[in-house]
């Protein structure tokens, strides 16, 4: 049987990054000059690349890196970026890669509201300039029984929430994804009740493992991975790690999350990775690691039990799945 392989690109055909970027700069300069010449006074979009440039520069600098996947090899960048669930861009696994360009990420702003003393809408660049970035290598386990190991770049959600001073009534954190049916093909069909929404308990949200990611593999997040900013909760099934976030609300009473609303029997609010609680239609005991053959045993809390099990002490996890 023929093995699965990629057709290799010879080293000689790969454009060096410096050259690629200098071409891009050259083109941009040319375009800018042309536009300035033919349309004086035309408002040049101020915010274009407002957050990308500074973020790229920060990511290119040496960031501290933490391996929280027990030394397991990261999944290849190609596998991470060509096998995704991002229903805003289509329900096929390759749709997010193919239609990723439909996601307009620049400019981007984030609304933080509800039970916080410092509510408001903030440009992404203003959010990021207050945060120290780091690389974190995490396991990612999808509810569909596949998994990856991803080197994320981001910062703890707790650090952001702290800056906005949650009130004592803040018990849950609600996240909302972009809603842009004019551009996002998946949102023109009601597969889910758009926009996508996820919810964490406040103690889960401020847990040091809970990350807001803005990059992976030493690059800005590709669109199919939830650019420009997404949640990563490594001990929960992947659908909890909401992509392309535009709003974070702290609330007292929680609304249902999108999948919970769609089918509460199958997608619980907690959605903690648990090999002992099967999805009603398939087993959760094993998983397929993308890029590997065979199956692995799924780990309790996706291997993060030591860090997070105390959050659920005394709870019946068969019932609160």
């Amino acid at each position: 049987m023929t093995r699965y392989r990629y057709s290799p690109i010879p080293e000689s055909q790969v454009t060096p990054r410096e050259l690629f970027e200098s071409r891009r700069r050259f083109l941009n300069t040319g375009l800018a000059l042309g536009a300035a010449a033919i349309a004086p006074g035309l408002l040049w979009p101020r915010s274009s690349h407002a957050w990308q440039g500074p973020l790229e520069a920060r990511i290119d600098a040496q960031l501290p890196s933490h391996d929280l996947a027990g030394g397991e090899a990261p999944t290849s960048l190609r596998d991470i970026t060509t096998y995704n669930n991002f229903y805003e861009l289509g329900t096929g696994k390759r749709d997010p890669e193919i239609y990723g360009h439909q996601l307009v990420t620049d400019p981007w702003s984030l609304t933080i509201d509800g039970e916080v003393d410092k509510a408001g809408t903030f440009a992404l660049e203003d959010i990021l300039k207050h945060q120290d970035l780091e690389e974190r290598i995490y396991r990612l386990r999808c509810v569909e029984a596949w998994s990856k190991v991803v080197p994320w770049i981001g910062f703890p959600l707790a650090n952001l929430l702290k800056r906005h001073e949650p009130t004592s009534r803040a018990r849950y954190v609600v996240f909302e994804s972009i809603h842009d049916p004019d551009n996002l093909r998946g949102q023109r069909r009601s597969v889910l009740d758009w926009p996508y929404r996820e919810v964490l308990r406040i103690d889960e949200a401020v847990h040091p493992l809970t990350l807001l990611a803005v990059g992976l593999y030493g690059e800005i997040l590709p669109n199919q991975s939830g650019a420009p900013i997404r949640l990563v909760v490594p001990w929960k099934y992947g659908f909890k790690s909401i992509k392309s976030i535009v709003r974070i609300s702290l609330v007292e009473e929680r609304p249902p999350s999108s999948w919970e609303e769609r089918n509460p029997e199958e997608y619980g609010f907690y959605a903690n990775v648990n090999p002992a609680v099967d999805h009603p239609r398939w087993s959760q005991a094993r998983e397929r690691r993308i890029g590997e053959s065979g199956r692995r045993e799924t780990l309790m809390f996706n291997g993060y039990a030591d860090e997070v099990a105390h959050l659920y002490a005394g709870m019946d996890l068969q019932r609160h799945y």
Partner: protein
Amino acid sequence: MDQRTAINLFRLLVLVGCSAPAFWLGWQWFYGDLGAVPGEAVVHFTGKTGLILLLLTITFSPAFRFTGWVGFMAARRQIGLWAFFWLVAHMLAWMGLDQYWDWPWIRREMVELPYIRYGVAALLLLVPLAITSFARVRQAMGWTAWHWLHRLIYVAAALGVTHLWILTRADYLLPTLFAAVLAALTLFRLIDAAIHRQ
């Protein structure tokens, strides 16, 4: 074009149409174009192709009824066997490329997971149909018994659509389409039978 040539051309069309997807799949596999999880892509592709061909097989009798053209009846056995071929390939792909021939797990999933049970049941129902599709067996059976037995294709198709329906996560476009086609074909069959009984 005389009748005989037209029928032969149609049979050739069915042959090419039903085998071409296998070449396409082999090509994609060889060049690594099936994505990050090629085994899963093969399982999905063989299953969809098999189910589409199974539904197409059922359309051949009504097509003959409406048009009166015998070409449909001449190619019906061929397309039915192709559907069976693709569904067997689907099951083998699932066992080998998805479950890696891990027999205890294959057994467990067959017993525990409803969608696997429906799929296996559909395929089992198709086995006697494939065996009795040969002319000599059919003659030995007699027309009435053969005719009754082959109505099982409706049951198998319904099980197949149910299998797809259950494993679908959120996007029900395709299973809805398949279910609607099968419902229309079944309805036609019942009405047709009722008219002929009178």
